[in-house]
């Protein structure tokens, strides 16, 4: 008698034999082949990743949930409010040079400082969004400290530009009207 391990192969072959023998015309057979090609294209996943996944790591067993970060209002809610306040204060400060022609050095320095803080928090948001701490801890540290160093350098550069040169708004005005 048939052994049980052989029966599944026979089932498969009997099913395919009966299906193909039903479609005697070549047109019907072609449509079956075309449909199966379309169906198999749907079944396979394409490897066109617009953004490939970051390196993954498993801490603990594979069945542990991903750790939820500690809530911290100074990095969360207060940071957000501070960011919006800085952005809102930039609106009148950027309109004033257009209205008044140029700024006195104090106002210009205030604009530069607020602009620097706004740029820093903006870049911080980009780093937080695209370089997660759990998946890429070293890259996150490198970028965060790199941003801090860059902000200090640019702060120094803006101070130099204000004192030994004409200042940001005046420089933009001169270049624009050159």
């Amino acid at each position, binding site marked *: 008698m048939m052994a049980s391990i052989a029966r599944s192969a026979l089932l498969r072959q009997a099913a395919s034999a009966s299906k193909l023998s039903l479609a005697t015309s070549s047109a019907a057979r072609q449509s079956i082949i075309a449909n199966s090609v379309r169906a198999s294209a749907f079944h396979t996943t394409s490897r066109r990743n617009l953004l490939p996944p970051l390196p993954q790591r498993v801490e603990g067993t594979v069945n542990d949930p991903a750790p939820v970060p500690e809530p911290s209002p100074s990095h969360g809610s207060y940071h957000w409010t501070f960011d919006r306040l800085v952005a809102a204060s930039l609106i009148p400060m950027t309109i004033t040079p257009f209205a008044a022609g140029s700024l006195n050095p104090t106002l210009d320095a205030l604009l530069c400082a607020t602009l620097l803080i706004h740029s820093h928090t903006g870049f911080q948001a980009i780093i937080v969004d695209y370089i997660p701490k759990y998946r890429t801890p070293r890259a996150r540290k490198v970028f965060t400290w790199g941003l801090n160093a860059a902000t200090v350098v640019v702060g120094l*550069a803006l101070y130099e530009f204000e004192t030994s040169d004409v200042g940001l708004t005046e*420089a933009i005005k001169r270049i624009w009207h*050159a």
Partner: protein
Amino acid sequence: MIAQRVGTTALRRVAASPSNVFFTANLAKLGMTASSIQSTQTRLVATQKLTPTDAHDILAAQRLHRPVSPHLEIYDKQQTFFGGSIWQRITGSAFSGGLYVFGAAYLVAPLIGWHLESASLAAAFGGLPLAVKGGLKFLLAWPFTFHALNGVRHLTFDIGIGFKRKDIVKTGWYVWGASIVTGLYLAMFV
């Protein structure tokens, strides 16, 4: 139910009386089963002893090969690519990136021999042809106006105004139009 299709019934009938082999019902199914006896599949199974940590490592390594669901390829392009918040980020980081690069270059310029003071920058810019000047000014003005107007729009979102779906889409297109018009004005007439 499927046993009859596979031919076990046909085999049983032939085994009961061998003269039945040439009946059509038995012949067709016996032919099918006979050809497949040579091609029956056999699976050789081997087992391997694993410690729990090894098993966990294999499972963790398999998890790294999971495919990524498509996201940016399939989401609504009006919302993801033209909605405004990614352009806010792009224009903002372009400006801030430029400011940071200029700041660093301004500090090291005396050491390399470059001249990045405002006077030399103005002289260099003034020597360019008119069309290039206009183009460069628009390239600087449009991101500024877009970021400013879209920033105001996002701040009103943060207060809670205009957060319905159709208002978001409408104000998004207004900001695109207003920013291009204002950018052109700033580049050409200011």
